[in-house]
């Protein structure tokens, strides 16, 4: 790493003891983004190891351009698939309603300046945590209490560990513990929709047209989204959403169901859809939760980001990506913050991020309804809408955190050529 300028350590707040709760996309990205700004942080994660089974994500240009600056894009690319096209299909006969190029003609990169990657979530975590270094990561630490003191915050963990911090960032997801402390309430709302998901070898999907595309199959009260992941697109990740149950009764967000339930929920759909769900044989239902709009993302020395602050439906594929945007924005603002007066930085972070994330949150909700229309007259208007997706949703993908920071007059440019690795 290049030598720090004299005095920069103080200016950039490197004296701050920063604790990040959660080693998901948000927590790991924030720790790396802080390092880029000359600050260090400790990340506390409740899981005892960083593995997540059966879950992939799509990383879009708005997030990848940040990782690219840290020199991580090639590592991620090596474990990713770039889809050939984005295709919308009819649930029953599989006809192509609309198709837009992605890898084809290099369209997406040319338009948005960075690629779109289908990748296993565990591979992203592995890449980010390796770049961060294990010594910054504290696993098996489940937060149970936050105690505010006059000039610090005490974090108490279930394993008995007690840590003092000057600044705490809750990056602990849609069911956030830190958010409960910030707002005093449980602001997670069940959306009335749930999902079955799985990862299936592409070779087990003989009925699937365009297995290397990202595709939405749209039908009455349900849809299925899939895209390929891995270095050679050898596996297909799917996410099948239904408009049930009306009410979520379970304490957690995942429940087991009878073996036949996932496939039975898509009875009468195109064989490619039922074949995929059947091949995954994963009888687990994921409740889809969002976070009710919050007026304040911070309290005292504690701030929340990502799903904890604005958990959204995943139908624009932006939960992880907006979380990563948050992380890089917050890091830039914290680097300018006065250690004994964090509130202006928190307020500016919220001001910069609340409208954008609310727009995507709202738009994902509208999209959910659009993807689940019954056969009938409304379908024609939907078909016109999905034909316009690249134009209508370009604003999501073209966003550039660093540009937004500059536009807000908020922070200096990210240091050029900063190394991600210690």
């Amino acid at each position, binding site marked *: 790493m290049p030598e720090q300028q004299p005095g920069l350590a103080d200016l950039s707040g490197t004296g701050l003891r920063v604790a990040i709760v959660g080693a998901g996309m948000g927590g790991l990205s924030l720790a790396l983004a802080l390092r880029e700004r000359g600050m260090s942080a400790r990340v506390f994660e409740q899981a005892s190891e960083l593995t997540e089974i059966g879950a992939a994500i799509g990383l879009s240009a708005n997030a990848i351009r940040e990782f690219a600056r840290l020199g991580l894009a090639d590592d991620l690319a090596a474990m990713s698939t770039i889809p050939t096209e984005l295709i919308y299909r009819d649930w029953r006969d599989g006809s192509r309603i609309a198709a837009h190029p992605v890898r084809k003609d290099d369209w997406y990169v040319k338009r948005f300046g960075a690629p779109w990657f289908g990748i296993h979530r565990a591979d992203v975590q592995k890449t980010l945590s390796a770049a961060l270094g294990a010594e910054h990561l504290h696993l098996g630490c489940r937060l149970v209490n936050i105690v505010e003191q006059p000039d610090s915050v005490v974090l108490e963990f279930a394993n008995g560990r007690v840590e003092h911090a000057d600044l705490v960032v809750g990056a602990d997801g849609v069911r956030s513990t830190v958010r409960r402390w910030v707002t005093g309430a449980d602001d997670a709302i069940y959306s009335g929709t749930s999902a079955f998901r799985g990862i299936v070898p592409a070779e087990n999907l003989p009925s699937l047209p365009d297995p290397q595309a990202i595709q939405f199959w749209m039908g009455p009260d349900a849809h299925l989204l899939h895209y390929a992941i891995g270095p050679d697109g050898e596996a297909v990740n799917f996410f099948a959403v239904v408009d049930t149950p009306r009410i979520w009764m379970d304490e957690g967000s995942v429940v087991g169901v009878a073996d036949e339930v996932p496939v039975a929920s898509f009875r009468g759909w195109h064989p490619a859809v039922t074949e995929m769900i059947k091949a995954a044989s994963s009888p687990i239902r994921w409740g889809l939760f969002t976070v009710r*709009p919050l*007026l304040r993302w911070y309290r005292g020395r504690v701030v929340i980001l990502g799903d904890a602050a604005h958990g959204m439906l995943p139908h624009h594929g932006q939960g992880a990506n907006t979380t990563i945007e948050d992380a890089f924005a917050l890091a830039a603002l914290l680097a300018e913050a006065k250690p004994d007066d964090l509130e202006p930085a928190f307020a500016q972070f919220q001001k910069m991020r*609340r*409208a954008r994330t*609310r*727009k995507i949150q*709202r738009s994902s909700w509208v999209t959910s309804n659009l993807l689940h229309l019954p056969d009938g007259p409304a379908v024609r208007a939907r078909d016109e809408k999905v034909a316009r997706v690249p134009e209508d949703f370009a*604003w999501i993908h073209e966003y550039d955190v660093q540009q937004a920071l500059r536009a807000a007059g908020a922070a200096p440019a990210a240091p050029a050529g900063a190394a991600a690795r210690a």
Partner: protein
Amino acid sequence: MPQDTVLAGLTQVLGDVAGVDPADVTPEAGFGNDLGIDSLTLVEVVVAAEDRFGLVIADDDWSRFVTAGDVIAYIERAGMIASP
């Protein structure tokens, strides 16, 4: 909160967020028809109005707003509940 205060606040928000001419903002002005505000820009207006007036406007509520007067009435009602 008296109506003219809320109207003045909303007028400023609409100017800041969407570049709307203050002269165009009346309680009868429709967001789509008269002020040229699409649904996504309306979200920005809602968020800025929330910050300005210190309240959260639920999605189910603001998605029914048609005119500036609808927002004003909503904020006034919320103000009465908050400070009876």
